[in-house]
């Protein structure tokens, strides 16, 4: 029946812009839940993702914690992987080439025990072709400052973000810890220190006790809570951050389906990351993207950006 321009018009725009990084859709993977991408490449076409965020990297490889590292909790899980990773160099040599074949930006999540380690890792990653943005995980203890967690003390965080900002020209995303009194304050500190975007939430510290053994189930005693259990906390935090910063927000925490992703977008996230859901459903990211498209069509909207931060609140 000839050209049908309407059917094209009817496909809503899903692309969003995070600090100059153009994502074809707002659905990315959460660090540590998607390996280095290849683990899930037999389940889905990685080119369909908004971005791939890889497992947290440090300047030298890490063995991580002893096992058990994982325990399930009601509608959630605790993990205490202990940031096991192959190190930035091996990542660049062995994992990055594989990821370059896909038309999807690669965001390197990284961390350190000290400001120097952060700087060093950021520099090495910034020089690697194929890394499109950096995500700083600041939920790690600062060795120099007597193991105070970088991401829970505004001063410590300011220092490390300022230092990393100088070390990279790539878009810099600061990943916030939810284990704080005032997440809005932490986001503002990150923004002022030069972050191009913030992502939240990282996991919430939790513990499960084996009552027979009278020991924590995890070898590390505590672990980080993720999954649907934390979603209402994460959505609230995204909203709090949205009210006080101007830089884009990447929202995550318990997103299992398109409806959950929409909660974050409406609360103010410009993109979302899917973590624990990958374990339950390896194609969760793709299904969420499809669901977002469907929602926009049903609501008669032509652009995902129309709903970002569209939350109407009562007095």
């Amino acid at each position, binding site marked *: 029946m000839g050209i049908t321009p309407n059917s094209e018009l009817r496909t809503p725009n899903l692309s969003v812009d995070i600090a100059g990084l153009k994502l074809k859709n707002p659905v990315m993977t959460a660090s*540590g839940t998607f*390996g280095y991408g290849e*683990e899930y490449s037999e389940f889905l076409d990685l080119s369909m993702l908004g971005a791939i965020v890889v497992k947290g990297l440090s300047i030298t490889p890490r063995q991580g914690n002893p*096992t058990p590292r*994982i325990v399930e909790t009601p509608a959630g*899980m605790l*993990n205490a*992987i202990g940031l096991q990773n192959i190190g930035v160099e091996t990542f660049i040599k062995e994992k990055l080439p594989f990821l370059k074949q896909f038309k999807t930006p690669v965001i390197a999540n990284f961390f350190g025990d000290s400001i120097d380690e952060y700087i060093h890792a950021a520099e090495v990653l910034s020089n690697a072709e194929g890394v499109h943005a950096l995500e700083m995980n600041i939920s790690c203890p600062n060795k120099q400052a007597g193991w105070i967690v970088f991401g829970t003390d505004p001063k410590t965080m300011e220092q490390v973000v300022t230092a990393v900002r100088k070390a990279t020209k790539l878009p810099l995303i600061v990943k916030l810890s939810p284990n704080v009194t005032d997440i809005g304050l932490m986001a503002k500190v990150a923004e002022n220190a030069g972050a191009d975007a913030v992502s939240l939430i990282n996991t919430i510290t939790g513990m499960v006790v084996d009552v027979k053994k009278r020991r924590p189930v995890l070898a590390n005693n505590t672990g980080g809570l993720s999954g649907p259990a934390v979603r209402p906390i994460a959505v609230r935090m995204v909203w709090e951050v949205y009210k006080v910063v101007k830089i884009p927000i990447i929202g995550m925490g318990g997103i299992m389906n398109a409806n959950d992703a929409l909660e974050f977008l409406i609360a103010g996230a410009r993109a979302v990351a899917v973590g624990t859901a990958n*374990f339950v459903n*390896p194609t969760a990211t793709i299904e969420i993207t499809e669901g977002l498209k469907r929602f926009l069509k049903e609501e008669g909207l032509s652009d995902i950006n129309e709903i970002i931060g569209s939350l109407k609140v009562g007095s």
Partner: protein
Amino acid sequence: MSKYFKAKTVDNFSLNKHFSLLNLSPLSDIDIPQPGQFYMLQAGDTCDPLLKRPFSIFRYEDNLLSFLYRIRGKGTLSLSRLKSGDIINVIGPLGNSYPVPDGDFIALAGGIGIASLLPLLDRFKNRAYLFYGARNKEELVMIDAAKGISKETFITTDDGSEGKKGLITDSLIDFLNPSRITHHASRIYACGPTPMLKELHRIIKSQIQNPKSQIIECYVSMEEHMACGVGACLGCVVKVRGQETVDSSQKWIYKRVCKEGPVFDIKDIIWE
């Protein structure tokens, strides 16, 4: 052909209070599983239980996937409630598999470990000396099926309610005694609880030191808590001797049970 597919419950019947057998019919083309591989299974679609659980392939026949499982906690309990016709999402086959045996071999199963070993016995019929131990009679399942495809079967229970009373590893020690060898098996395949595997490791070490012993290799299927089953979360690692690491000062590395395993050479595992 995807490793993530929908399957229909054909039946799910209870063998006794503790054990059930689940038969699934995949709704799309699947990869053919090898003995030792596993699948991630979950009943229902609510957030509790949240994660899938790993189960060894127990049988694959006429495009039907069978799993033998023991009801332990909430994951297996909810699995036991699957009814004929229920459709679930499945990931698999995952992990490596048992290396192909040459000639006769020994299979050591502790409890539900039989689920993982049975496909091996079945593929290499009448070549296995099966050692199968459990706490009691109720915990021994599929004995007839196992006997029918094994060369010889040794059964023990902790309480003597079936077979010989005692530990299955003690029966194995007797059997391996070099001064009265009656077999030609040089390999052991094992799956069962960690204390059994540790004792096996001890046995193997002394066998290898003994020049009269025929045993030269031993493969064990390991268990760890899993979240993803596909190598992404790093939740399921075990300590393995660091032969493959660049830095030779490193005595061990972590390997993923779900990806580099579940089957490992017993010598490579660091038993703590």
